[in-house]
């Protein structure tokens, strides 16, 4: 890793301090009275219960133990292009595709700015932006 990459990764770390230190599975969050996760900056992030219930309705019961929340919307304009984001994970893709009513298979899905807006509107606390960059 050269100097630029080191500096850039440090910058990315500070820009992504709003991400969860440890994600939690949907099943566990549904049981909690005040569903929350600890963020990298040490603060607590609370999930809206209605959103969790909506996600639980969209997913089959067995996926409740797999889906890790919050769902990350990955932004990397140099890799995916401007205004494009990626969602990774089989259950995550399932939730997003059902919300957008869009066909998707596998563990990766690309969404575009108007779709990001819809997702963030429907799931403001259970999704988070993640900034990434291509090193090297």
């Amino acid at each position: 890793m050269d100097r630029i990459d080191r500096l850039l990764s440090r910058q990315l770390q500070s820009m992504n301090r709003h991400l969860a230190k440890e994600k939690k599975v949907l099943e566990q969050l549904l049981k909690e009275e005040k569903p929350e996760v600890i963020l990298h900056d040490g603060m607590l992030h609370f999930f809206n219960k209605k959103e969790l219930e909506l996600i639980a309705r969209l997913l089959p019961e067995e996926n409740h133990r797999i889906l890790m929340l919050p769902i990350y919307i990955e932004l990397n304009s140099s890799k995916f292009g401007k205004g494009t984001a990626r969602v990774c994970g089989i259950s995550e893709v399932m939730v997003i595709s059902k919300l957008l009513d869009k066909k998707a298979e596998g563990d990766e899905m690309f969404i575009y700015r108007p779709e990001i807006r819809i997702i963030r509107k429907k799931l403001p606390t259970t999704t988070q932006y993640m900034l990434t960059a291509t090193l090297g």
Partner: protein
Amino acid sequence: MAELIESVNPTRMELLKLKTKVKLAKKGHRLLKEKRDALIVEFFNILEEARGIRRRAERSLGDAFIALILAQSTLGVLKVKEVGLAVKETHEVNTVTRSIMGVRVPVLEIENEKRTLMERGYSLSDTNYMVDEAAKKFEEALAAVVELAEVESSIKLLSQEIKVTKRRVNALENIVMPRLDATVKYIRMRLDEMERENFFKLKRIKTSQERKEAEATA
């Protein structure tokens, strides 16, 4: 032409350092632009939400005050005031936060939003239906006002963050990057110039040496 970075030595080492900085600035600029765009998307989402909520809050407050006036007209202003003093203040607002790209926005939740007649605390025998209606309408208005407070403070916090990010993007775009580019160009020009000078010097030395050799042989 953009300004040059002050006290920079036109050396190859400096050129390499500056090239690294240009590369880093470009990547950082792209990242910040992404952050700004995402914040703007969030801002407009909340703004759209706020319009409806403000209208709803204004309407429910209007309805509540009409209900209060009606109650005052049937029971009298003093009696309604007396009833008001007897009401238990049990509404609690829970404040939690959620993070939007590092911006902590509040999430306000009102506990025990709608109370029953008995929970309100005033005497039912001394009052009438109008008072109950006014109390109910004010409870509804309170919920709408809390919702409005959440959304409006989110807008305020997000707009501040957008402003800061925009300023950083603009500083990189209009000051830092052009300055770095101009300095790189200047160093390149200086190095080329130095190379030409050296070449010319060598050529002159060679000619003078040749001349001296020719004179010596002659």
